[in-house]
């Protein structure tokens, strides 16, 4: 397996995974979207709410706020050994505000200083003069397959690596005009696509269709994938990719362990 990173920032990543099976690429993609454990608010104890939003609306907004946490130290509530709740499966955060004020996700006071909303500037509700909000939110670990509040990977996807080849080009330039991505250039021996530009190719075959002498073949490398990863902020893009492959490994190890007893 070979990886070439094209972009790696806090929330975005783009990389080429080559020499891998299509099943692994798809498993990884699905794991990023649905299997990465994250922390999100699942219960809210409201002590006072005189804002314009009613309790349920407020609860939905709170639940969708991404929370940064080290989930290796936390366990989902169903898997926790405790009877009801404990610091290993539950994190409490309080919010108290009085208007006139815009309440932001950054106003949360967390019981654990390592655990906090990944964005401070998500507006929760605007309080007018005299309106009050006082609540305790309880966050639990979960997976994206159960609810979008736990979805750490946003629109993660891949495409197979395009392979466009030109042979015996007669330099008619019609493919250059036909390409919607404008990536075909005229080289010394005819039309060509630079390696960097090849990533942009969408395999639309416009160039092959327009070529009068069938000099262009558009193909794909089915063992190489261009991945596009975006994180919601609860993990950095790098951690998200690592967590996804760890989640897959946990599944296979888990099943192996069960099969040992057969």
């Amino acid at each position, binding site marked *: 397996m070979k990886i070439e990173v094209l972009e790696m920032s806090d929330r*975005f990543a783009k990389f080429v995974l080559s020499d891998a099976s299509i099943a692994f690429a798809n498993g990884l993609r699905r794991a990023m979207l649905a299997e990465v454990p994250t922390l999100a608010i699942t219960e809210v104890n409201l002590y006072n709410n005189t804002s*314009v*939003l009613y309790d349920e609306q407020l609860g939905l*907004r709170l639940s*969708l*706020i*991404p929370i940064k946490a080290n989930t290796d130290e936390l366990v989902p509530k169903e898997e926790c050994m405790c009877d009801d709740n404990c610091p290993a499966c539950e994190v409490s955060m309080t919010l108290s505000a009085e208007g006139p004020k815009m309440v932001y996700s950054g106003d949360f006071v967390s019981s654990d200083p390592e655990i906090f909303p990944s*964005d401070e*500037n*998500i*507006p*929760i*509700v*605007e309080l*007018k003069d005299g309106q009050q909000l006082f609540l305790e939110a309880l966050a639990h670990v979960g997976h994206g397959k159960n609810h*979008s509040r736990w*979805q750490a990977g*946003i*629109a993660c996807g891949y495409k197979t690596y395009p392979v466009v080849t030109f042979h015996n080009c007669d330099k008619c330039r019609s493919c250059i005009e036909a390409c919607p991505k404008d990536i075909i250039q005229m080289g010394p021996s005819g039309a060509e696509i630079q390696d960097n530009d090849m990533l942009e190719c969408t395999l639309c075959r416009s160039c092959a269709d327009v070529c009068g002498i069938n000099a262009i073949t558009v193909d794909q490398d089915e063992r190489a994938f261009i991945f596009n990863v*975006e994180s*919601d*902020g609860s993990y950095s893009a790098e951690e998200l990719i690592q967590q996804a492959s760890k989640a897959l490994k946990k599944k296979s190890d888990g099943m192996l362990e069960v099969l040992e007893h057969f």
Partner: protein
Amino acid sequence: MIPVRCFSCGGVIANKWEEFKRRVYEGESSDTILDDLRVTRYCCRRMMLSHVELVDTIAPYY
């Protein structure tokens, strides 16, 4: 209030709303702002473009 996440893809958009709103008021065109904020997908872009703030409309009757 602006929805916290995009309805379609689940991307967080609320963290970009206030900057978007401010820059629109300052006269910048919304497509350049959205590109700048890396709101690239059209599902997320429509969340921002079509949002109407209703808090001030409702508040007097509350």
